């Protein structure tokens, strides 16, 4: 044991650990992290938090578990993704304890790739084998009429697609904690389920843009010359287009779906990363050790990538964090303007748009709560991004 610890001592603190430590110095950052985790929990566990099916119910003597029976393939996908992601996190932590720094990077990438493979196959399998189910029975009324007993409902016992015209546009009350929207669905429930949309848009879109950005940047930076010239023109074009307008155009012209939104946001916001990575490559090219390595006959590719990753990735990550905030905002804006996901799928922006009814009556609860949801999510990601930037920036670290 002691030997191990000594070994680890000899490893010293890795860049990642330093950033980590630096990051968690601030209590605010910790708070943000907790909030994000909370958001994730809400998103992943949405069906368990807000659902009109009971966890367990006794009908005619025998127990049923409608809620679990009602889980859709996409729910399972979310769970899978969450689990895999969590494992990846644990693995990373473990790496820092077990794996010798020089090979850590490679190990990490291998783990990531394996996990992605697992995830993809898993999702495919889920969609093949888990049937779409539609549970028609209305358990509430059964309980009410006494047909069923000992039913345990989720804390928010409403479905996000349930409509109830009798109680539409109700202000917050005992029945509906955060009120109801224009067709009487529970706002809180829709908020919870909406977090899924926001987060998934945020992450997928940004993931996409980051990947595109890195690849393009790497290509430009690696080949340089003509390729670079042409590439940069394209990048310029992308930057010169009023992005939001472009997004609206695309989203408005093509069928309404979550994926479209993700993709559109993804393909319109990669320029930053691309330019950064390109610059990073050029910087590296001209560094002596690279020149030396090349002169020794090592392939430029491997060198560039090996050295680009550690130095180059961190800022890209920071960028991504801000990107997530941005993407969430854009999604909200789109839904607000009516280009969002198809109803009754809940989206914060779309809920926000209901805040001022056509009569000009101001349904404050339909404005305040979704708005706060968006605001705090965006704020948190921005804060985290800022904190990360500070953390990875040694100059600031010295100065602070």
């Amino acid at each position, binding site marked *: 044991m002691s030997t191990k610890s000594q070994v680890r001592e000899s490893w010293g603190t890795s860049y990642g650990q330093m950033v980590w430590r630096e990051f968690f110095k601030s209590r605010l950052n910790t708070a943000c992290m907790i909030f994000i985790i909370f958001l994730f929990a809400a998103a992943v566990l949405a069906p368990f938090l807000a659902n009109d099916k009971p966890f367990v119910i006794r009908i005619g003597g025998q127990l049923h578990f409608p809620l679990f029976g009602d889980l859709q393939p996409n729910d399972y996908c979310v769970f899978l993704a969450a689990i895999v992601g969590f494992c990846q996190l644990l693995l990373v932590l473990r790496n820092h304890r077990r794996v010798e720094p020089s090979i850590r990077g490679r190990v990490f990438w291998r783990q990531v790739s394996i996990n992605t493979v697992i995830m993809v196959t898993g999702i495919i399998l889920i969609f093949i084998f888990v049937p779409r189910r539609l549970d028609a029975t209305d358990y509430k009324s059964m309980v009410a009429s006494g047909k069923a007993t000992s039913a345990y409902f989720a804390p928010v016992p409403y479905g996000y697609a349930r409509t109830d015209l009798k109680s539409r546009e109700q202000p917050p009350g005992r029945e509906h904690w955060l009120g109801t929207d224009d067709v009487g669905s529970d706002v809180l429930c829709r908020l919870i389920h909406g977090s899924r949309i926001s987060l998934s848009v945020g992450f997928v879109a940004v993931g996409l843009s980051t990947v595109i950005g890195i690849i393009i940047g790497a290509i430009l930076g690696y080949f340089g010359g003509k390729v670079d010239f042409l590439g940069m023109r394209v990048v310029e074009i992308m930057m010169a287009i*009023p992005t939001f*307008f472009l997004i609206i155009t695309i989203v408005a*012209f093509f069928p309404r779906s979550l994926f479209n939104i993700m993709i559109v946001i993804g393909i319109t916001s990669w320029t930053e990363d691309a330019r950064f990575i390109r610059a990073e490559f050029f910087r590296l090219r001209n560094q002596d050790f690279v020149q030396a390595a090349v002169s020794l006959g090592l392939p430029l590719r491997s060198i560039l990538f090996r050295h680009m990753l550690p130095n180059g990735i961190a800022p890209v990550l920071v960028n991504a964090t801000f990107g997530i905030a941005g993407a969430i905002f854009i999604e909200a804006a789109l839904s607000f303007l009516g280009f969002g996901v198809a109803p009754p799928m809940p989206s914060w*922006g779309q809920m926000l748009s209901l805040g*001022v009814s056509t009569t000009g009556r101001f349904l*404050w609860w339909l*404005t305040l709560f979704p*708005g706060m949801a*968006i605001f705090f999510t965006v704020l948190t990601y921005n804060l985290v991004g800022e904190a990360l930037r500070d953390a990875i920036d040694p100059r600031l670290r010295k100065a602070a």
Partner: protein
Amino acid sequence: MIPTLLGITIMVFAISRIAPGDPVSLSMGPGGQLDAARAADVRKARMALYGLDKPIPVQYAKWLGRVVRLDFGDSLKHHRPVIDIIKERLPITLTLNLIAFVLIYVIALPVGVLAAVKHKKLFDRFSSVILFMLWSLPSMWVGQMMIGYLCGPTFENWFPPAGLSSNYADQLAFFPWLWDRLWHLVLPVLCLTYSGFAYLAKQVRAGMLDNLRADYVRTARAKGLSNAAVVFHHAFRNSVIPVITIMATLLPAMLGGSVIIESIFSVPGMGLLAFEAVTTRDYNVVMAVATIGGVLNLIGLLLGDIAYAIADPRISFEGSEL
């Protein structure tokens, strides 16, 4: 610059034409009156009328040919020359944005500088938190809240909820008119301003902090300059440079943002125009907006570079490539 523009237009053109739906079926609506036997021909006729029957590249070529003569064609919705519509709308958006822009700089610079000078003092901490919040406030939310709380029947009714001037503003004398106009501008401008201002202030602060740590500032102090002189004459001058370049990125962002703001406050500006054009497949307008938006952006970038070159002796004009 020109190739960039071409690229933009081609891209938008392609998108708008590939997409399903077209102005003709829009203008013909779900039908109801038209006999099936004729409907198809009528449609063809209309297509020909709008010149939508040709293959897309040809259409683009034609369009381009007209645009170089600054003729964006007629709006398929308003049936008027697009250029006229733009002439009405662009100034509105520009005034909106320029006012916001000036405000942003006027507020952001002092706040940022002060925060940097009072680094880690109360003001700095307070302001940085506030700025952060402002920065992340979703504008549509703020707009919605303002309309709801400040100009709704439900709560206060202090501001007009929509438009740029109350009716018959044109019959008012100049000053009442101006007042009325300003009154209508308050909220939209506010919405446009706050986030950009927060962002900028943050940048200024960061820049100032860097520069206050720089060696030449130490030199300046060693010269025996007063604190104020050091801050404003030396540090500020340097940290202004990046701020100028932000201008280039801020302007396009605001034009994009004005889509939201204008549709919330129904301000008849470019943003709203773009929005309507997109939803009604008003191709000519869409193209025009895209082009002009692109041009504005490029101008923004160009201005940024020029300003940079002026502000920073290290950059010469040849340096700014566009």
